[in-house]
């Protein structure tokens, strides 16, 4: 029993990371029909931003306590990472959109932006890995033989809170309605007096901000940073979003947690080298049975 609970907890933790990143893919896709392949690297940038913010706040200039540093690093990382996402939209995607470029070119641009982020990091900071400082004293609670760390709980609670927040934004606010409306038909958006670019910027702020949060939480949980850390996790989160039904917030979270669960389940039975092979085979089967993803609705093509 303990063994199972321990693994459920691990699955939830990994699922939380995937879910937090997947929602960025899903938000941008929902609004722009664009697969933002740079998103995994936004997560990486978020981790680095949190490293430097935390380093500065702990350092001699600010000299804050680790707890204070953590409390300030969360919002600062989210804001700064959101700025990176919005900048990307401004300099890379918007000009193409203005010129009415085909979607393929925008996706390729996104891929290139991701590579630029990775290699500019490599160029500026070098190939050496960075060690993230410990901000929160690690506490381990032993509940009936299951070791629960405060960090794991923090990650899971953060993911659930973000899910509830976004679900509220998308279903209850006028900005969220506009996001859903854009995904259905862009044409009539300006006719409602809605400046489309503002909605797109808000979408990037939300997606990148939460990728930044994921980067910080990931760095706190696995405190080694390197320029390519966003690549594989980004791909996996993207696949999770697609399996959940891309464009749907619920889908991104369910997909993320599903991938986390499958990975942990595979590792408990098979050697860990089998993990990705099995996980993706299962996801492939899910898509084979339901090509629109678990929560996706087939897109009707309009003339």
């Amino acid at each position: 029993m303990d063994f199972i609970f321990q693994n459920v907890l691990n699955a939830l933790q990994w699922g939380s990371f995937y879910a937090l990143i997947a929602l960025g893919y899903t938000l941008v896709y929902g609004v722009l029909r664009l697969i933002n392949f740079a998103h995994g690297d936004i997560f990486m940038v978020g981790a680095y931003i949190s490293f430097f913010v935390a380093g500065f706040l702990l350092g001699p200039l600010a000299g804050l306590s680790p707890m204070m540093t953590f409390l300030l690093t969360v919002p600062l990382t989210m804001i700064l990472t959101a700025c990176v996402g919005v900048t990307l939209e401004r300099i890379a995607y918007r000009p193409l959109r203005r010129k009415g470029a085909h979607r393929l070119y925008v996706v390729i641009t996104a891929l290139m932006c991701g590579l630029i982020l990775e290699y500019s990091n490599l160029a500026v900071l070098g190939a050496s890995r960075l060690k993230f400082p410990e901000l929160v004293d690690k506490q381990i609670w032993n509940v009936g033989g299951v070791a629960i760390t405060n960090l794991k709980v923090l990650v899971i609670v953060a993911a659930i809170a973000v899910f509830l927040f976004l679900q509220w934004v998308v279903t209850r606010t006028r900005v969220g309605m506009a996001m859903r409306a854009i995904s259905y038909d862009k044409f009539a958006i300006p006719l409602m007096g809605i400046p489309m670019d503002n909605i797109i910027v808000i979408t990037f702020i939300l997606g990148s901000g939460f990728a930044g949060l994921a980067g910080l939480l990931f760095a706190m949980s696995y405190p080694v940073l390197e320029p390519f850390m966003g690549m594989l996790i980004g791909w996996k989160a993207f696949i999770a979003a697609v399996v959940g039904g891309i464009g749907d917030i619920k889908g991104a979270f369910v997909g993320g947690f599903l991938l986390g669960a499958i990975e942990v389940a595979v590792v408990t039975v098979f050697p860990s080298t089998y993990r990705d092979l099995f996980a993706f085979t299962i996801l492939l089967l899910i898509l084979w049975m339901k090509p629109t993803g678990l929560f996706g609705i087939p897109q009707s093509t309009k003339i």
Partner: protein
Amino acid sequence: MLLQVENLEVKYGNIQALHGISFHVNEGEIVTLIGANGAGKTTSLYTITRLPPPEAPRVVGGDIKFMGESILKTRPSDVVKKLHLALSPEGRRIFGNLTVMENLKLATYAREKGADLDSEYERIFELFPRLKERRNQRSESLSGGEQQMLAVGRALMTGCKILLLDEPSMGLAPVLKYELFRKLKQLNEEGMTILLVEQNANLALHLAHRGYVLDTGNIVAEGTSEELLGNPEVKKAYLGG
């Protein structure tokens, strides 16, 4: 003159769609643009609402003035927000994945804070009681006539002072057509200025005060509705003899 179009010339790529047309709309009027497919009616409306590319044509000559000032540099969202011009587009273009109520709410995006929206929703529901019954349904499940009512209601909820309507009668059964046009008349009597684009010239001219006849990007006839209804050439070409 509320809205004034002067010698407007527009192009889609290299194809000229309007060859210097002029028309105007006075406050409180219903003005109609009639003509066959491809005459430039929808193009005129898209140009006025300043829709962004790729839908919108490029203005290469002339001007559009709202209360005497050129609006060629106005952003499309500001046409709605600041000039209070709203378009109910051809083919309705409602947001099918939102409920009826959400469609109406979304249209208030640019409204000033403090507007009494609840009474305006009520007004829309009085005008179109079917929408009230279906307020919580996904709007793509509505019938064609109901969708058209929603498109008009949505345009009204932007708080518009001029309502532009593109082919509102298209695809509607005769009964629904007449019902919709009666509602438009009612709206006008309550003070709404309307610019109506229609292929159904007979119906449009019976509602409007004045009209313009468009043919391949040129205005070929204009006058009061009575004049146009009595004009032998208009009769022959657009009113079925």
